[in-house]
């Protein structure tokens, strides 16, 4: 099993007159799992297709291990891709689909049979050889598409939203299954997703993208706790922002704005000196299963907080956020202290 590092340098893509990707730098270490995360239309699929060779670069360089991929056609790159639509060939059976990449490499018929059976066993789909791919469920198709990509022992696996066509329950179980498979094969993997929960759960390294730019490259923990700027924070579920006042903690940080998540803001916590406190009138109270989400109208902003007990709209309430849950931002909306865009990941 050959697993290799991927390096993108200065990668720029223009489609038509539009710049889709602008000066992307990225290092992916061998055997790691990287998620490309970002809102719809930010260029995740385009980046993946550029790596696979389907989208030409206007500038920049792509290297896989020691090989320069930049000018190779797709069939010479050995970057196995799983398409969002799976792209299984409908005129071929499951066995023919899985065996085709081997056939292209001149593997004999009996050897192909054996490898296909082995792969099907690994995917827990033994006995599906003769099945028409059109007669598979969504989850089965997804696994066959994955198997077809893995059967050539590629040095790099590219996944374009492999789970987003599946329903929630299957998606959750396939997440861990996929991750387990990836770890056992030790294959360098890049997965596109627009689901932050998926990225946080699965990735070693998350590449957060916005409008054709890389905003932040870091571990899930860092990304979650220290988003590079306010926009990144909002995308990662930081749904409240307040302007700092002199009474607030972390005066030495130079923060102008604080961001915090609803789950960290409490209405009924015992008062504590090292905390951010805001008072206002309750305008809404919604039951969420774990407790209540309460919308509070301070004169500065509308803020969400959690409460264990219901609160009547119209009453006054004070929300409290512990200092550790506050994310400080400077006047330019960037995180304080400034973060290295490309955090080193061992």
């Amino acid at each position, binding site marked *: 099993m050959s697993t290799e590092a991927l390096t993108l340098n200065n990668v720029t893509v223009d489609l038509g007159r539009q710049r889709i990707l602008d000066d992307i730098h990225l290092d992916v270490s061998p055997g790691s799992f990287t998620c490309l995360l970002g809102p719809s239309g930010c260029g995740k699929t385009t980046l993946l297709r550029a790596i*696979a*060779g*389907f989208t030409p670069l206007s500038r920049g360089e792509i290297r896989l291990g020691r090989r320069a991929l930049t000018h190779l*056609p*797709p*069939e010479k*790159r*050995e*970057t*196995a*891709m799983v*398409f969002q*639509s799976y*792209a*299984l*060939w*409908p*005129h071929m059976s499951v066995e023919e689909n899985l065996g*085709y*990449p081997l056939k*292209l*490499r001149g593997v004999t018929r009996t050897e192909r049979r054996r490898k296909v059976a082995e792969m099907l066993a690994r995917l827990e789909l033994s006995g599906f050889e003769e099945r*028409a791919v*059109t*007669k598979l469920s969504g989850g089965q198709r997804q696994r066959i598409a994955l198997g*077809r*990509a893995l059967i*050539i022992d590629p040095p790099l696996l590219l996944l374009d939203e492999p789970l987003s066509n599946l329903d929630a329950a299957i998606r959750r179980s396939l997440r861990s299954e996929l991750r387990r498979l990836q770890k056992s094969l030790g294959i360098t993997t890049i997965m596109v997703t627009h689901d932050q929960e998926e990225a946080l759960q699965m990735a070693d390294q998350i590449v957060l993208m916005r409008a054709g730019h890389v905003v932040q490259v870091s571990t899930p923990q860092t990304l979650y706790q220290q988003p590079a700027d306010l926009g990144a924070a909002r995308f990662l579920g930081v749904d409240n922002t307040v302007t700092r006042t002199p009474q607030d903690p972390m005066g030495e940080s130079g923060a102008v704005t604080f961001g915090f998540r609803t789950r960290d803001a409490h209405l009924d916590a015992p008062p504590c000196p090292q905390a951010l406190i805001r008072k206002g009138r309750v305008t809404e109270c919604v039951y969420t299963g774990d407790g209540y989400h309460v919308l509070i109208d301070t004169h500065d902003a509308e803020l969400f907080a959690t409460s264990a007990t219901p609160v009547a709209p119209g009453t006054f309430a004070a929300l409290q956020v512990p200092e550790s849950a506050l994310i400080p931002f400077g006047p330019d909306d960037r995180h304080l202290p400034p973060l290295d865009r490309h955090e080193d990941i061992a």
Partner: protein
Amino acid sequence: MTIARIASPLVLGALLGLVAFIVFGPLLNLAMWAFAEQWFYPNRLPTGWGFSFWERVFRPRAGAWTSLFNTVLVACAAVALSMALAIPAGYALARQALPARSVIMLLFLLPQAFPNLPIFVNIAAIFYQWGLNGTLVGVVLVHALPGLVYAVWIATATFSAVDRSLEEAARNLGASPLRSFTDITLPQALPGLLAASIFVFLDSIDEFTGTFFVGAPEITTLPLLMFNASMGGNYQVAAITALILLIPSVGFMLVIERFLKADVLSRVGR
């Protein structure tokens, strides 16, 4: 309500009968002519039946066999030629951006909008210079021309309908562009391409004008034979020729249908 319920099957039946009469009436008349020994004006039906005209048509020197052979040969060659051009052209067009494609396709249709008699006269004049008049090659070319337009249209539509990511998946896993075309794209496009072939074949089988200007009198096809017979007032021979004309058409359709069935059935479950 009840009246409608009783009347509707009657109306439907009558309508079907009418359609059947319009479609099959002329054929029935044709069939009667083919076996009529004697059929003069006031009589509704032939007064004598028999096979003597069949014997005349199939007499070795009458030319029916050669015309049948020519007709089938020319049709097959026209299909081969126009598909050989339409497949790459259709594929290239299908991969064009949409506005450019529409313009090219429209330009392509332009000759068809023209009355085709002057076109054939001109072609005959050019072919005469090139020594193609009165040759099978000339006739094949003149048959492939109108067929080509439709074949390119149908092929373009068919190739545009093939999901691009299926090809990309093949390229991604190591197939050269040609290999991904033959292994993935072509099988996906097969039903449409077969439909285009049927079209060209049937068009060629009863093509008359072009054959008349380019082929006659050296090359005789069944439609030409039929024309000569009709002009000579020999309706029996014309009718028999028309019936023979059905043989290649029906035969070709049966062969294609077998292909289509297997292929289409495998896709219905999609």
